[in-house]
């Protein structure tokens, strides 16, 4: 029995070491933000199925779960580089963990591309860490333009989730643009996991809020929206890409109708690329539902890295890192992606409205 096992083991090892170009996907597949990790990985997997080769070599994606934990984010990045010998890393998902893993990538000079970390600190002073999404300063600007210029609102109540770096950063840039425009705003605070927001909402109503802006995650956005409607607040509610998941509608129900949010992508947006059409078609075929924003970002992360390997013409991590930052107008699923010399993607922000329980594309704010 033991001998058979050993023979089997050798077979397994020898077969699994055939692939030539290795990429690692560092994803939170379990833990608090597993939902995002799973959506993004679906996109990476789909892209890998559709485009499995580059420069005539096969691409293998190694998935490493970090259970949404910082210590594991560091360990998996090390493991990807030292044990799996990958040429590039796809991930991490949330900003705090991308910063932790990014320090390792930077030290080992291996490129890392995050699908969804929007905090400016992620790519600050980094040569090897890039992202395919826009960063908070730009999303904050776009949300403020939406609120104050497109919709003509004033005196916005900004609901800040003090536990989330994403929400704190995003709100800060919204505030800056509001100040530039000479508009009014005030803060209301809550934290992730809160269930009851009536105190903050009543306070905001008493201060005559012209609109709510909630730069947090879907759970709280949906709860705040429904409690606000119950308390008789009928002014517009705005949110960021944290609302871009079907759960917002599932939890919020009728209350989230007429909610506007800024996001990376919407399948209904005009001038989509060939890859976008292919992505929507194949995803729907495979999973039987329309793809979400984060899945599209996962797809693009893989595509951008593959494109960079193709242009670099080699699997040398340093050359790939350089090629990633030379990405210009790459036709991804979320639109045309250009990555600047700081590693940030310059992309337009899509504005989506919820109508009768459906996401409806509204307009686009360009950089």
């Amino acid at each position, binding site marked *: 029995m033991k001998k058979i096992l050993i023979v089997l083991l050798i077979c397994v090892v020898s077969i*699994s070491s055939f692939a030539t170009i290795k990429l690692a996907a560092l994803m939170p597949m379990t*833990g608090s933000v597993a939902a995002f990790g799973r959506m993004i990985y679906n996109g990476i997997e789909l892209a890998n199925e559709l485009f499995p080769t580059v420069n005539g070599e096969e691409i293998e994606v190694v998935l490493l779960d970090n259970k949404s934990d910082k210590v594991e984010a560091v*360990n998996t990045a090390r493991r990807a580089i030292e*044990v799996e010998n990958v040429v590039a890393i796809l991930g991490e998902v949330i900003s705090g963990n991308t910063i932790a893993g990014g320090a390792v990538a930077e030290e080992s000079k291996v490129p890392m591309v995050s699908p969804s970390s929007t905090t400016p600190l992620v790519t600050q002073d980094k040569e090897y860490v890039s992202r395919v999404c826009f960063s908070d300063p730009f999303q904050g600007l776009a949300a403020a333009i939406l609120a104050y210029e497109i919709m003509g609102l004033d005196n916005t109540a900004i609901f800040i989730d*003090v536990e989330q770096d994403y929400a704190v950063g995003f709100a800060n840039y919204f505030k800056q643009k509001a100040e530039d425009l000479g508009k009014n705003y005030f803060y209301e605070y809550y934290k992730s996991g809160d269930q009851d927001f009536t105190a903050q909402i009543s306070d905001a109503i008493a201060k005559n809020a012209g609109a709510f802006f909630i730069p947090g995650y879907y759970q709280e956005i949906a709860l705040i929206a429904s409690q606000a409607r119950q308390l008789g607040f009928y002014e517009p509610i705005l949110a960021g890409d944290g609302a871009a998941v079907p759960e917002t509608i599932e939890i919020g129900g009728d209350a989230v109708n007429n909610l506007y949010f800024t996001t990376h992508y919407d399948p209904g947006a005009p001038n989509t690329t060939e890859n976008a059409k292919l992505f929507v078609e194949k995803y729907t075929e495979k999973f039987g539902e329309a793809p979400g924003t984060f899945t599209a970002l996962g797809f693009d992360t893989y595509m951008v890295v593959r494109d960079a390997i193709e242009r670099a013409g080699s699997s040398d991590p340093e050359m790939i890192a350089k090629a990633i930052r030379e990405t210009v107008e790459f036709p991804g699923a979320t639109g045309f992606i250009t990555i600047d010399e700081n590693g940030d993607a310059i992309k337009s922000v899509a504005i989506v409205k919820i109508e009768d329980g459906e996401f409806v594309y509204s307009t686009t704010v360009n950089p």
Partner: protein
Amino acid sequence: MIKLNKKTQFFLTIIFIAVIILLLFTAKENLNSYIVRIITLIGIYGIMSVSLNLINGVSGVLSLGHAGFIAVGAYISSLLTMSIYQKEAIFIIQKVIWPFNSIEMPFLFATIIGGIVAAIFAFLVGWPSLRLSGDYFAITTLGFAEIIRILALNLTSVTNGALGLKSIPSYTNIWWAWGWLLVTVIVIASYVNGTFGRALRAIREDKIAAASMGINVYKHQLITFVLGGFFAGISGSLYAHWLTTIDPRTNTIGIMLTFNILIMVLIGGLGSISGAIIGAGLFAILSEVLRFFEEPIKIFNFEIAGISGMRMLIFSALFVLIMILRPKGILGRKEITWNNVFSLFHRKGDK
């Protein structure tokens, strides 16, 4: 039972430490940096579990506030070692306040200051709340740790709020981690094995009996608590400079960390220093080694997809198994000492 004389024991200990240093040196030179980082993490977890074991296992009060002291040590030391330029760059919402905006100091001093500040916090918490006993004390310390975390979230001009600190220089290497572990073990072991430690054990077994024998229960427990807090602060500093970034999330420096350390202590054996280190080692190694179960398995042309989260199931199952087979942890209250090791071989030799 064999009793070795003090001189032989001391000699053996020196040889043992030398062997460990040699092993660490070979590991650092020959193994890849992934494994070296895990070994470093064992050292850091070791300090955390040995210091929690001192409070929970030896003095017998149940503290759930360890992550609070670790957080204090981590934040203070990181703010001291980070370069002034970095601090200016990352505090994007509010500027960092004096004196942190103009200080930059070496790792060793920053770590010690981190430990001392954590010890001061331990004194401030322990002074009123050690008058409580049992569960009430546990709740107080739990609350304290949460207060520290909430402060870190909201004192934006000191801690950068929810954004956390990043670009902390990665000073923690295998020598710092294991060197501090050695210091921790020497200090705590000599403390526990002295008169003071015997008094602590008496308190642990029966508080009233100990008090009636003239032992000042409150004073002994307070000193132990402060000492535990000091080493928690030290481990926090090492932890922050190992991660290179910290934030006030529950699984970075919050309640989840306390529970993880508690697991290490209980697995190794509550009340045993060597057990705490074994527990820390198991915890750090298993969570990486078990990754094997999540990898896709290819047998010829069949590919079985890996299931994410599988290793956590096996991890927990293993710990449940250990708790069933050895309810008092792997070592129980025993220590690995030279006397115990030799008696073990001797007994085997007889058979």
